[in-house]
């Protein structure tokens, strides 16, 4: 009989295993109990600090005892201030940011962005976005440009979206990399610029006029459209004649988003005179957004277009034109063939208030540019 099957040894092994299990359970329970204790202590402290911070927000006076708080109470003051900082804007935001400045927390957070561990730098960058002071903005711009970790650069880009200052938009646009080596996804940069709202518009208009960086130029126009920056319409319209196909496509899409009737003439030219199916189908889509009665005839002619994407979007655009468009579609809907099918589909879709966006069966990239986009060949990434 082998030694390890000896009943005494087996019992010993079982006892040792049981002891280890109990020890592990105790360890986990102790850890959980300690965590709960810490959380309860933090909650208790926070509940004493919270009224002081809330009263400061209401009265616009910085409480000295909060500014001078140190140790656990100081950390509680930081925690509560950061939490409310995320929820307010205007004077209340400035006041809370000033509390953090005076406490030295803002400077401390900036210092933490130089730590060795990437997740510490990323956390600090996220907090700097909430503070949104000029010093925080400068540091975030540096992180976005120079930090070796992509994760930190992404957090810095998102945080800059919370900083509603024109300089932040310029920094974000500079981070759009034409060759794709920077690796901050353009979707992150685009959503951060959108988060800035119209603060980003001047920088976007400037980028939309820079043919030297077509990828950034195209993104700027997409965003100008989404932000409904009507003042930028002429810049966007001029770019429908750009040498870059992506820029032309974005310009047409942005004109549709802007929805200005004076852009209908430019879009009709793109639809009828161009030979790129992507641009033509986007022009049809955009004309559906603008709903200029003068475009009905041209859209009707496109119902029989050899490219199904152009015909499909033209039919949906006609449906968006109301009675005039529906009249044309009803005439075309009889009989067989792709034209009648497009017309019937558009008539069924036309009653919906969302406008002529393509049904899910169509590949969306063919109907509208979006993020993340596929970079054109030859641009890396």
């Amino acid at each position: 009989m082998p030694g390890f099957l000896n009943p005494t040894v087996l019992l010993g092994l079982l006892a040792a295993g049981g002891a280890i299990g109990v020890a592990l359970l105790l360890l986990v329970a102790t850890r959980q109990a300690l965590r709960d204790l810490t959380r309860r202590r933090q909650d208790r402290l926070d509940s004493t600090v919270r009224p002081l911070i809330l009263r400061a927000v209401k009265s616009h006076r910085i409480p000295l005892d909060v500014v001078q708080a140190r140790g656990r109470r100081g950390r509680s003051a930081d925690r509560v201030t950061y939490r409310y900082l995320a929820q307010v804007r205007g004077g209340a935001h400035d006041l809370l940011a000033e509390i953090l400045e005076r406490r030295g927390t803002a400077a401390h957070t900036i210092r933490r962005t130089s730590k060795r561990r990437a997740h510490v730098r990323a956390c600090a960058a996220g907090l700097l976005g909430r503070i949104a002071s000029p010093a925080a903005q400068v540091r975030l711009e540096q992180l976005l440009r120079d930090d070796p970790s992509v994760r930190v650069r992404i957090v810095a880009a998102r945080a800059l979206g919370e900083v509603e200052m024109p300089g932040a938009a310029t920094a974000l646009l500079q981070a759009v990399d034409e060759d794709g080596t920077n690796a901050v996804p353009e979707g992150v940069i685009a959503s951060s610029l959108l988060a800035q709202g119209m603060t980003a518009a001047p920088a976007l208009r400037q980028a939309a006029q820079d043919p030297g960086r077509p990828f950034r130029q195209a993104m700027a126009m997409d965003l100008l459209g989404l932000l409904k920056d009507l003042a930028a319409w002429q810049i966007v319209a001029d770019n429908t004649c750009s040498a870059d196909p992506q820029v032309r496509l974005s310009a047409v899409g942005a004109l549709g988003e802007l929805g200005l009737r004076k852009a209908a003439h430019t879009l009709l030219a793109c639809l009828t005179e161009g030979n790129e199916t992507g641009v033509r189908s986007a022009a049809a889509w955009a004309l559906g957004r603008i709903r200029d009665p003068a475009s009905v005839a041209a859209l009707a002619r496109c119902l029989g277009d050899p490219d199904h994407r152009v015909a499909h979007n033209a039919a949906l655009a006609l449906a968006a034109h109301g009675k005039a468009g529906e009249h044309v579609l009803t005439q075309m809907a009889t009989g067989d063939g792709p034209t009648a099918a497009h017309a019937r589909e558009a008539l069924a879709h036309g009653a919906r208030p969302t406008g002529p966006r393509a049904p899910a069966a169509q590949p969306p990239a063919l109907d509208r540019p979006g993020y993340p986009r596929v970079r054109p060949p030859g641009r890396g990434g």
Partner: protein
Amino acid sequence: VDDEPDIRDLISYTLEDCDVRVASNGDQALREVARQLPDIVILDIMMPGISGLRVLELWRADPVTAHLPVILLTAKAQETAVDRGFALGANDYVVKPFSPIELARRVAALTTRQNRA
């Protein structure tokens, strides 16, 4: 009415001169309003359970609460939901993050208008 305690705290303190009652979800809001009709409601759109818009719809369908002034609270990304809110009869809206002073002014404007009517 907001599921975020920080927002409820901020609004309660901003309007501390008024008698403020808070609710953390749509169900609780419906119960509170049925119990005692307030002068005004600040209502978050996106909440777990019944959404703010559904709560508003239910209030507008009830003759007792049909004219209850409602300010919608909405995140920046949900601003399109505001159009639906107005279609349902919302009186105003405030985008989060919000300025407490601005919110107080809107509440004052709306309640003053309501009192005059």
